[in-house]
């Protein structure tokens, strides 16, 4: 609210280390809440030597711009979707593939294990970005204004707004549907005017973008993990003393790797409830219906087998 405690000229005194962390999310999402935890932990555990300033609501630009800023060192840290890291290291296409993780637990296991390590190493090698931890932005669901979607056949000839990434184009091509790339701020009007028929994002962002106001149906396809990452500039990290680096690593692990994951399920249920209450009709896929989506997605695995490390395919059992 008003005041909010900030506003001191902290950049002026040289001893204090300032960490600016940015995201494009509103202040009430699980990742934003986790960032408050991160801030508290870093400031406490560093004995006040480090301060954290959080800039949400796209104040520092959209996710792509935040990634670039962290890469260039104009921002120390960011919280962004993993899909934007694929332009730095192509292995990251893996986390964006449809139905690549069988469920939440399997996803955590892979990301905290060898798969996650390969992704982190590759990114650090190819850029000045280090991925600290993986948070859970929930899974994408399909919302549309035309009809109830039950199988992959139902979305043929529908146009879905999608994030600007090659992977999304590939997915919709494999599903015989059309993806229309556009920025987050244009979606609402496009959906209202029928420029697109639907939008694919997780319930968290279906809610924050208010898309349920203009779409009538949503289907729990859970087809793509909306993976969130905490990232930090490697030069900045290296400039810190060992003990301070550890403080940041521990706080990030606790905030994004543990706490965020424990609140996301609740947030997801709440988001679905908001959509239900607004009269948006929910459909849960039966196993047979789900299979139609999974079968149609195999073409995507083949397409990206050339750019993603074979070791990762092997680990994921693709």
């Amino acid at each position, binding site marked *: *609210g*008003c*005041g*909010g405690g*900030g*506003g001191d*000229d902290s*950049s*002026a005194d040289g001893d204090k280390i*300032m960490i*600016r962390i940015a995201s494009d999310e*509103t*202040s*009430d999402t699980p990742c934003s809440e986790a960032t408050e935890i991160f801030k508290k932990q870093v400031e406490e555990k560093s004995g006040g030597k480090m301060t954290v*300033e959080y*800039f949400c*609501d*796209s*104040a*520092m*630009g959209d996710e792509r*711009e935040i990634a*670039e*800023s962290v890469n*260039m*060192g*104009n921002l120390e840290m960011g919280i962004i979707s993993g899909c934007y890291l694929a332009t730095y290291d192509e292995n990251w296409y893996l986390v964006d593939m449809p139905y690549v993780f069988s469920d939440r637990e399997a996803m955590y296991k892979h990301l905290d294990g060898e798969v996650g390590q390969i992704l982190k190493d590759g990114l650090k090698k190819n850029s000045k970005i280090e991925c600290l931890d993986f948070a859970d932005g929930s899974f994408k669901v399909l919302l549309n204004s035309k009809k109830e979607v039950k199988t992959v056949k139902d979305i043929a000839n529908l146009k879905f707004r999608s994030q600007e990434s090659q992977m999304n184009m590939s997915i919709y091509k494999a599903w015989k549907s059309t993806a229309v790339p*556009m*920025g*987050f*701020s*244009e979606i*609402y*009007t*496009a959906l*209202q*005017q*029928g*420029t697109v028929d639907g939008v694919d994002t997780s319930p968290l962002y279906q809610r*924050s*973008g*208010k898309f349920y*106001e*203009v779409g009538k149906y949503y289907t729990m396809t859970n087809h793509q993990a909306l993976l969130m990452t905490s990232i930090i500039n490697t030069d900045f990290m290296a400039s810190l003393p060992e003990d301070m680096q550890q403080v940041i690593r521990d706080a990030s692990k606790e905030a994004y790797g543990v706490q965020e994951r424990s609140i996301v399920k609740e947030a997801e249920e709440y988001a679905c409830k908001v959509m239900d209450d607004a009269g948006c009709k929910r459909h849960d896929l039966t196993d047979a219906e789900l299979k139609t989506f999974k079968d149609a997605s195999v073409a995507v695995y083949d397409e990206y087998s050339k750019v993603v490390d074979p070791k990762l395919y092997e680990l994921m059992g693709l």
Partner: protein
Amino acid sequence: MGSIVMLFGGMILLIFIGVPVGYAIGLSTICTYASYSNVSISLISQNCFTGLNSFVLLAIPFFILAGVIMGEGGIAKRLVDLADSIIGFVTGGLGMVAILTSTFFGAITGSGNATTSAVGALLIPSMEEKKYGRVFSSTLVASAGAIGIIIPPSIPFVIYGVSTGTSIGDLFIAGIIPGLLMALVLMIACYIISKKNGYGGSDTKPSAKHILVSAKNGIWALLAPVIILGGIYAGIFTPTESAVVAVVYSILVGFFIYRELTIKKLIDAIYKTAIINGITSFIIAFSASMCKFISIERIPDMICDAITSITDSKIAILLLLNIVLLLIGMLIDIIPAIIILAPIFLPLVESYGMSPIQFGVMLVLNLGIGFVTPPYGSTLFVASAISKVPVDRMFKTAFVFTGVLSIVLLIVTYLPAASLALIQ
């Protein structure tokens, strides 16, 4: 505090001694970054790219180009002839046409700059031909640009809705009455000024025959707005895409139906567009850097504290807030302003019982009035680029329109029904 003085003081000083507006913003931002922040100045160069890398902004050169081609290819002339045959006998009639066209375009684009560039390129030359003052015409079109973001759809409302969690659909509906009120007060002001200066108002009364002939001549021209509006509402294209459809359509009609367009005219139109875009769009990039600094320094928080420390009467706080927002609108661009201000000011007004919808309309209207307030008046710059009237010569007239639009602002601020009446 020093940083605020340096940032805004430096910018105002540099603009008024005559540094090109964009570079005045750029230089004051660079100096402030260097003196008050540990962020690398390279952020400015980064924003020179990222600040413009937006699909929504693409609509601006397209609408300018469409307007210029419509002018060269005979479409504009026929549209204006038709409008003139209907309303030309009224004092200030063509000015009113400009306001109404802006309202229509506003219902398409959702962007003030796009509205001003489309209507300006189309109508400023025609108004000049009919002996309207150039300063008056350009300022009027610039002011009417603000209607474009209040009448739905509106990009600023979407940004506000997303960053505060307010219903965007309700915001759109809430904008209808204030938007029409803006058109109304501008038309009244246009009538009074035109009466004083003798703009428009020929002796010939409109005749059915004359109107019919003009309508027949202008049928293809009339189809242009129909295709743009229809295309968007039928969901065939986005506003940015509609701008490019308008370009293609006006090229086709200009070449093959009216046969007034030539390859040479088309090339000249494209180059003219590139120049107008070149002297306006880069300002947005520097403005983006400036707003990042305002965010980093938490300047809106400081303003919020200052206001509440002065008074706790609701009427006074709302008045102060309007003044502050108008001042901010003088200095920075609307989209970044909403992003950094809305989340901080909304809780303040909510604690005094104002609905987030009403505040959204009030905020956007304030910043929309900022389109025509010096020194940073974005639609003023676009109108100036099109009409070649120096911006400083527009300030006085802009001040009149600002005052007139402020009446609507007061209504929106103190009469909740103005924005909330149409929402169930």
